[in-house]
């Protein structure tokens, strides 16, 4: 069979006729753009692509992508997507949801999709707030977040999406930022290319209920010093002139940020990013301001996928059992004949 000839695609080929209903200025627009660009770049076959989402502002996503789409219920998209892959592993399944969707009500399903390693590309839009329900604090909100449900400031500690993912045994973990239109599509392409569950946390600004929550590391003025873009095999350098870097702190299993201009700091001390090293990925995932926030692919170490293993086991069974014959199965074991 010949592979279908795909004509070059444009991001707009992946846009639906539906009016996009996010608030003007919402970070979701930029993510939509980056995803459509990614789909065009990888020439995704719309017929074989499925976007599955939960509920929330983020989860409206499938309505705006010209592929198959299933907008399900709050928190359950990873479970629905798992069923889709069990039915048809050939489909290219993307999962989209917010921080509340995937880390609060659906935290359990996210964890199990990750540990099973179902072949899914999961995009978690983290705006550190419940957007759709009008601004309550979320499980990623920082302590002290004032919201309609926490007028005195939130008091519970937030969860880190990436550390949770690594803890659950994720084999691909990355972070992107909504506005970085050059960087984000590359991260998404990497996630998509990974066989198994790929989790991408996308930092997303909710302009209405949590505006500027990430300004401390996303503002133009500070981003060079406040972010570190990690790349496999390259030294972990950051800063305007890439004169800052990460090295192991003396005497402990910790990372410290240093300047190459400091006394006693040498290039050779700077850590080289190894995306197959789960321990390094964990250390990078732990970086929070005032340390630079890690952006890019922190961990990528493929392992057999659940959906493929399920099929393989079924094939083995079929090979062992021969042609399935239900009539024969019913007649196996003790039977008797009644003369009537």
């Amino acid at each position, binding site marked *: 069979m010949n592979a279908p000839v795909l004509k070059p695609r444009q991001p707009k080929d992946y846009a*639906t006729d*539906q009016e996009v209903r996010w608030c003007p200025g919402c970070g979701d627009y930029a993510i939509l753009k980056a995803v459509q660009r990614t789909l065009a770049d990888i020439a995704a076959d*719309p*017929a*074989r692509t*499925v976007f*599955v*989402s939960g*509920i929330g502002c983020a989860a409206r996503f*499938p*309505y705006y992508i*010209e*592929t*198959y*789409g*299933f*907008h*399900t*219920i709050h928190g*359950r998209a990873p*479970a*629905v*997507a*798992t*069923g*889709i*892959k*069990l*039915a*048809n592993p*050939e*489909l290219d399944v993307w999962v989209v949801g917010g921080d509340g969707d995937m880390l609060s009500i659906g935290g*359990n*399903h996210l*964890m*199990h999709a990750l540990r099973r390693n179902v072949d899914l590309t999961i995009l978690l839009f983290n705006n550190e707030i419940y957007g759709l329900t009008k601004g309550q604090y979320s499980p990623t909100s920082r302590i002290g977040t004032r919201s309609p449900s926490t007028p005195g400031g939130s008091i519970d500690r937030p969860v880190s999406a990436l550390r949770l993912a690594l803890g659950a045994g994720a084999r691909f973990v990355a972070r992107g930022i909504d506005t970085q239109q050059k960087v984000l599509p590359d991260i998404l392409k990497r996630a998509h290319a990974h066989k198994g569950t790929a989790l991408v946390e996308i930092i997303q600004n909710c302009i209405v209920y949590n505006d500027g929550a990430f300004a401390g590391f996303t503002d133009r003025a500070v981003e060079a010093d406040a972010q570190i873009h990690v790349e496999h095999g390259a030294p972990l350098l950051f800063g305007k002139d890439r004169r800052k870097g990460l090295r192991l702190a003396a005497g402990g299993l910790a990372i410290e940020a240093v300047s190459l201009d400091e006394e006693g700091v040498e290039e050779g001390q700077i850590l080289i990013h190894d995306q197959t090293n789960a321990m390094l990925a964990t250390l990078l995932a732990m970086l929070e301001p005032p340390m630079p926030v890690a952006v890019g692919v922190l961990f990528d170490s493929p392992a057999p996928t659940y959906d493929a293993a*399920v099929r393989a*086991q*079924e094939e083995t*069974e*079929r090979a*062992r*059992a*021969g042609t*399935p014959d*239900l*009539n024969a*199965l*019913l*007649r196996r*074991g*003790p*039977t*008797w*004949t*009644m*003369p*009537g």
Partner: protein
Amino acid sequence: MVSVGAGVEIAEETRSRTSLESVVVRFAGDSGDGIQVVGGRFTLATAIGGSDLATFPDFPAEIRAPTGTTFGVSAFQINFGARRIRTIGDAPDVLVALNPAALKVNLADLPRGATIILDGGSFKERDLKKAGFAGDPRHDGTLAGYRVVDIDISDLTKKATASTGLSSREQLRCKNFWSLGLVLWMFDRPREPILAWLKQRFAKQPEVAEANSLALNAGHALGETAELGPLPAFKVGPAPIEAGLYRTVTGHEALAFGLVDGARKAGLRMVFCSYPITPASALLHHLAGMKAFGVTTFQAEDEIAAACAALGASYAGSIGVTSSSGPGIALKTETIGLAIGAELPLVVVNSQRAGPSTGMPTKTEQSDLYQAVFGRNADSPLVVLAAATPADCFVMAREAIRLAVHHMTPVMLLTDGFLANASEPWLIPDLDATPAFPVRFRAEPEGYQPFARDGRGVRDWVKPGTPGLEHRIGGIERDALSGNISYDPANHQRMTEARWDKVLAVADDIPEQEVEQGETSGRLAVVGWGSTYGPIARAVTTLRDRGQSVSHIHLRHLWPLPRNLGELLRGFEHILVPEMNKGQLVTILRNEYLVPAQSLSKVTGKPFTIHEVEDAMTAALGISS
């Protein structure tokens, strides 16, 4: 009372056997005694003799209760006869008790005059104490009025198996087969199929097969030769059963076969997603062993995920099936709502148990009918079916898949803890004799509208992967044609009606309600659903034999109800609805048809006895029972 010890007198004697129309035997012992195994073997020997039968296992609720305690007692009951057998029998005629605890637990169920065969060897002081007996029930009058056969089964088993060289503990483990041998003799049942089974089952441990065979033969020989005054001997002849090839089947086995056959007939892969819960888990276990038959099984992280994964599978063009019991079904509710809104097929099997909350997991009830028919937020209709007998689970499971895929709707199939575990002889169907009902997925892009409907109100099923049919659906109200998000008031009215009408139209695709027994009009209709089938059927037969104008109507399609049901019910002066709940079907019938249906309610965690139904019937008829 007669004691038979090791030095028993043996006399050559051929006894005359009493003929019985039907008899109820209960095997009971410690959960480690292998009660279920001998129950299953006795069932087979009985079936081969041509009797009709029904069986029910009663497992202890505890996983590993301490040996010899009352909460570690396991039992297996069989009712068999030379007539059609409808129930497991109201009360045992014969109890085999392999330890004092088994006697203690089961004595209350025994009517006076019943026969008790007990292992006198296990009635030592320590055993009695563990079972909670103050004295020895054999000698303190506790067993007065029963026919007691007190045999040192333990000792006789050890003697019979001594030649095998097995340890004394291992020898003792054969006492279940020793007892079985004796019971086989009592009822004149063949040993050969069991000896053959032992050989096959323990092919890798020939010494175990040998020891159990020796024990079985010894128990049988004792019956044949011992001077046992009160050891009764019976004859139970063959029942008038349809000719053909039979096997026994439990409700859960039948469900598994029916689902697989249904998926096969629909031409679909089945993706079965579940989370363990009593008494539903057995279905997951059966299907997990059927992977070669186009079945994918998925043990999800919880019931929500199980329902969601099943729905995802249906969305992707397989038939998604999920299964649980009441508490788990409650968790699936939101997903079922999504299936209703997105109009996707989904089969939900509910093996009901006593509730609310955790309730009594191992005890049976049919109190989830409201949950099935009404138990969701909003106007959320779906199709509800119920299986009546273990074998009926096969037919109804297949029916659930047929209706789900051809009407693009979730279907809830109700069984219960009793049906799931009970077994009965099953005339093995020729699967190829029932027509297939293949699904036709839409592939033509021309004019496609995701929520356009055919004449039955059913939308097209499109498999992702089909070029040109890309579309978006979801839980937010959908435009009546495009499926795009719509908050339009008129559209919501229209879609609510459409979902409702679509499910009601399923009534055109199901059989009209038949009358199980009796005329289509008369003085009293007993209307049942689910596992009350057996006691109702038998009670109705009894009263009809007494010349009463009574009929049995048994519902398998509970929503929508069969088209002719209202008219049928109106033909009766009285309507009695026995249910193992506080009266759920009865209110639905009153509501739908404004008929004066009366409820007969029982919620003890146990099935109705025939007498309970008979008594309610005679009361309704105003005659003496």
